[in-house]
């Protein structure tokens, strides 16, 4: 039972983190808090993918040690290195995350300049007035 919990609790942590971010995106009225919730959401997905690259038992980062084996491809022990593909894909995802964060903050600044508030209900009230 304890072994079962140990091997699955990381997924439950990511699920909890994703719930926190999702709740922040939906329930909070402040736009900055919504953006923070979006970032927590994205971070939980990135953690989830990164954790799928782990292999237990003396595994290091995916940097091939012996350069002498450059000509033969069979000298590499695959079980010695972590899975490199989730790292690469999440590098791309982090770039997209930073891009969306930057554009979202720029739009928030524009909204603040126009309406002088970041609360969603006050903005909607201002928009209805004219």
């Amino acid at each position: 039972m304890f072994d079962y919990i140990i091997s699955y609790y990381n997924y439950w942590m990511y699920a909890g983190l994703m719930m926190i971010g999702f709740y922040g995106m939906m329930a909070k009225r402040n736009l900055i808090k919504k953006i923070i919730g979006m970032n927590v959401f994205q971070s939980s997905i990135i953690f989830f993918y990164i954790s799928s690259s782990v292999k237990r038992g003396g595994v290091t980062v995916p940097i091939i040690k012996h350069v002498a084996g450059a000509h033969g491809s069979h000298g590499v022990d695959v079980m010695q290195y972590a899975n490199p593909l989730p790292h690469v894909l999440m590098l791309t995802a982090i770039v997209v995350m930073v891009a969306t964060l930057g554009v979202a903050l720029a739009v928030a600044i524009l909204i603040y300049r126009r309406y002088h508030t970041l609360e969603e209900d006050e903005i909607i009230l201002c928009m209805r007035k004219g």
Partner: protein
Amino acid sequence: MKFLSLITVLLVGVALVYGTLGMPRWGDPNSPAATHVSPYYLEHSMHDTATPNVVTSVLADYRGYDTLGETSVIFTAGMSCILLLRKRRKHKEEDHV
């Protein structure tokens, strides 16, 4: 509104935790992610690209066009930030300058 979103979040969380029960265990060397595609890159990247760092060789060699597109994403985001946040001058001033 808050109650409704709390209910939605709890439903999503229960579905996620139910989904994790079918996942491979943490750090399992025989998980599908570690056995199907990734051994190819670990074995052949030294021969194909002569780069010890497999992450770099996949990012810049095997998936070079993806990285090019990623750079265009960053460029688009930076340009849209500049265009949104710049100070708008009046057209008459621009004509004099």
